[in-house]
């Protein structure tokens, strides 16, 4: 068996937060963090609350900047060093390569659920009928009632919004998928659906890095458990 290609290559990442308006308090969160993830592999980060799991994931998405080290992500044949890449390079990377799913939906006012879910795939120039079919399939699998699809999700319950957000996060077959507690507070039925979605992503070769507090989800998807303090 040939080795799967390296998708994520993090080495020596440092990250501290300095609160200039609160007496300049500074605290280090990541110290020399390194991690390699291959295609088809799911790495689950664990560690206590506040240990830096989310910070690490946000650094991988270029949502947080880092103070040192390298974060290279595969985009086709190339490895992109995201710590120094231009904003438009990161945006292009996020559009087709790098997916991020949290438990929170950032609501765009007025936009109906079905369109919220379709949008990332539409942005790639995929035919609207195909996007719609895939969005409907995902919403159905995640048990979002059909009568809600034409409504903007702003008024939905927390759990419904969360599932809309998961559908949106899985509509594009991203080669790299970052999951920040997408299953938090979901019921067992829907957790199972998310587990299936993650397994399908792995099967098509996606590299997945996730944070999950539910042990059953962790057991079901993780190839490796990594302690954030040890990386």
């Amino acid at each position: 068996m040939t080795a799967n290609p390296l998708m994520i290559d993090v080495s020596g990442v440092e990250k501290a937060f300095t609160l200039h308006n609160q007496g300049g308090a500074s605290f280090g969160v990541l110290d020399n963090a390194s991690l390699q993830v291959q295609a088809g592999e799911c790495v689950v980060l664990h560690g206590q609350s506040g240990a830096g799991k989310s910070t690490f994931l946000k650094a991988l998405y270029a949502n947080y900047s880092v103070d040192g080290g390298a974060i290279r992500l595969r985009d086709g044949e190339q490895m992109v060093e995201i710590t120094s890449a231009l904003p438009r390079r990161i945006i292009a990377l996020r559009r087709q390569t790098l997916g991020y799913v949290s438990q929170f939906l950032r609501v765009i006012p007025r936009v109906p659920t079905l369109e919220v879910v379709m949008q990332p795939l539409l942005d790639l120039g995929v035919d609207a009928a195909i996007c719609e079919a895939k969005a409907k399939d995902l919403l159905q699998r995640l048990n979002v009632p059909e009568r809600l699809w034409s409504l903007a999700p702003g008024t939905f319950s927390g759990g419904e919004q969360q599932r809309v957000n998961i559908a949106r996060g899985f509509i594009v077959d991203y080669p790299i998928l970052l999951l920040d507690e997408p299953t938090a507070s979901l019921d067992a039925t829907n957790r199972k659906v998310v587990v299936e979605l993650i397994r399908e992503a792995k099967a098509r070769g996606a590299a997945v890095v996730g944070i999950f507090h539910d042990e059953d989800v962790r057991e079901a998807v993780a190839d490796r458990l990594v302690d954030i303090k040890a990386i």
Partner: protein
Amino acid sequence: MNTAVGLLTSTSEWQDIAPLLSVRELNKFYAPGKGCGDINFDLYPGEVLGIVGESGSGKSTLLSCLSARLTPDSGNVIYNSEQFGEMDLYDCEESMRRVLMRSEWGIVHQHARDGLRMNVSAGANIGERLMAVGERHYGQIRTKAEEWLTAVEIDTGRIDDRPSQFSGGMQQRLQIARNLVTHPKLIFMDEPTGGLDVSVQAKLLDLLRNLVSRLGLSVIIVTHDLAVARLLAHRLMVMRRGEVVETGLTDQVLDDPQHPYTQLLVSSILQN
């Protein structure tokens, strides 16, 4: 390790695309600390750049300098024009700047009355820009005006009404239609949602977001509203006392601000 793999930061294909607008060492001061200075950036086709900062930080002065409405004290603004090729905005004929303003550029003012002619009909407001670029056929102008009214969600039955009879939100949408009818490449916006009700703001933002992505527009938008910046801008420049204090990817600047002033701005937003 991995030295065999091509490292892509700002190299290869990403450098082959020429910037639409390049700003170098731009300075314009009315008094010390009033105006803007030491401004440098490139804007690429399809990019939306947000300029944020408090009142008096120099945002609007900068926007005026960038859009050929205010001659800077020093520095260069290089625009890559479809008609004229690469040109320095303040080292060219006045007539060329005027041509740009009515064809390749659009300017959306905070107060719609600054960008509209209040005493002629909505249709004429849109048609005027078309005629300025040589359109003469009355029927075609009216058809296009109707198309653009529809695109900005104004009932075409209002085509013969004057903007003074429109609500603030409708006036703002009409101003956008008037700007977009000539298919500009670059739009300058100064607080486009300022002064509008929150419900009207949401509608306008959604409309702008759709138009910008559908038409692949490049936009420079000045706003003091960070929620507007987050929704529309790909990247941000944070200004304070005439200087750029922080710049970067929009969500990175807002979620992980580095400069004390940006941290203060972000932490001042009410959380819901």
